[in-house]
């Protein structure tokens, strides 16, 4: 891995951590709904860094968390979260970031907003739930149907985050990426 990629991956992992610690920031429409911003970071990692580096960044973040840094939202961390009922979602983040990045490359839309929105909905919501729900069912002994119902309570927040990701990605890709020297 090039030094540049290594540092970008590391700093993006730090960004995901900072998003978990930042006092809740207000998303549009989401008046009053507490939204943890961390999956926003996961979706953005895929959009900005691409599939491989984005997934690496999320994996690095989770590794630091597993080693004991309390960087998950609410100050959680350590090995406990990886054996708890929500561990599947965390593993899903890695796959989710990869899929978001891969879809950003292949989607044929001209508008960054549309591409980022579709990629985040599929990679950042569907894929993450695809990993999270079976684990939730298995670790708690719930039926898959009940686990899916419990999982579905996350969907409104997830949708907002996908929309926010699309807005942010559009602003970033149109305004800042030349200045930041990002490769398309």
């Amino acid at each position, binding site marked *: *891995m*090039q*030094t*540049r990629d*290594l*540092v*970008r991956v*590391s*700093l*993006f*992992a*730090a*960004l995901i*951590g*900072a998003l978990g*610690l*930042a006092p809740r*920031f*207000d998303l*549009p429409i989401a008046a009053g709904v507490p939204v943890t911003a961390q999956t926003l970071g996961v979706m*953005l990692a895929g959009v*900005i860094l691409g599939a491989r580096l984005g997934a*690496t960044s999320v994996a*690095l973040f989770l*590794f630091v*968390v*597993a*080693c*004991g*840094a309390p*960087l998950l939202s*609410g*100050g*959680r*961390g*350590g*090995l*406990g*979260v990886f*054996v*708890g*009922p*929500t561990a599947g979602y965390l593993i899903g983040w890695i796959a989710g970031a990869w899929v978001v990045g891969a879809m950003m490359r292949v989607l044929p839309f001209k508008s960054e907003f549309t591409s980022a929105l579709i990629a985040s909905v599929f990679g950042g919501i569907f894929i993450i739930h695809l990993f999270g729900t079976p684990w939730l069912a298995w*670790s*708690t*002994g*719930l039926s898959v149907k*009940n686990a899916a119902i*419990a999982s579905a309570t996350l969907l409104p927040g997830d949708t907002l985050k996908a929309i*926010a990701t699309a*807005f*942010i990605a559009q*602003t*970033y890709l149109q*305004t*800042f990426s030349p*200045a*930041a*020297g*990002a490769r398309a």
Partner: protein
Amino acid sequence: MIGVPLSKRTWLHKLPAGFKLLFIAGATVVFFWVEDPLVLLASLVLVLLVYFALGREAVLRLKLFRLMLPILAIVGAFQFLASGPAEALASVSRLALMVLLADLVSMTTPMIAMMDAFLPVLRPLRYTGLDPSQLALAFALVIRFVPVLLDDWLRRREAWRARGCSHGSWRLVAPWMAGLLRIADRIAESLDSRGLRPR
């Protein structure tokens, strides 16, 4: 749930981190196949006794466990309705047991020792192009830059508020990210100029 190590060294600190990791991995596999609620409950009591044996600070950590309580309550209620009290007790005590046991390891293992213990597991990743020897640098960068980025974010938000914008701080995420990538590239340059070999 909260992984910060205890400030005081205890007898559990003396065990090698790799051993503790293997123990957790083994216990996770075993306990997921145990169905008997009494065995699970007894193990849970045993783990709680270890917390008490570690002293006051460890017991105080149990308070942080309340973050898990809503999830446990929901799981318990679902299981009680779906398959009866025995199943509910088994599921709830299994979850509590696993998380408390894993936290016990995190609490008594310094972060660096934990990273070293993970390294043998991660060695095969070399074939996917990810070099474990660079992991230490990446790890340090993450730890160092979380507070820096958080501070940068709060500063940006304060400036945003000072200009009378009370809503829509999500608009600051894009410039924040751009700033982050600029910093990243400067760090990469200085690492290169100081002789870090890219592979």
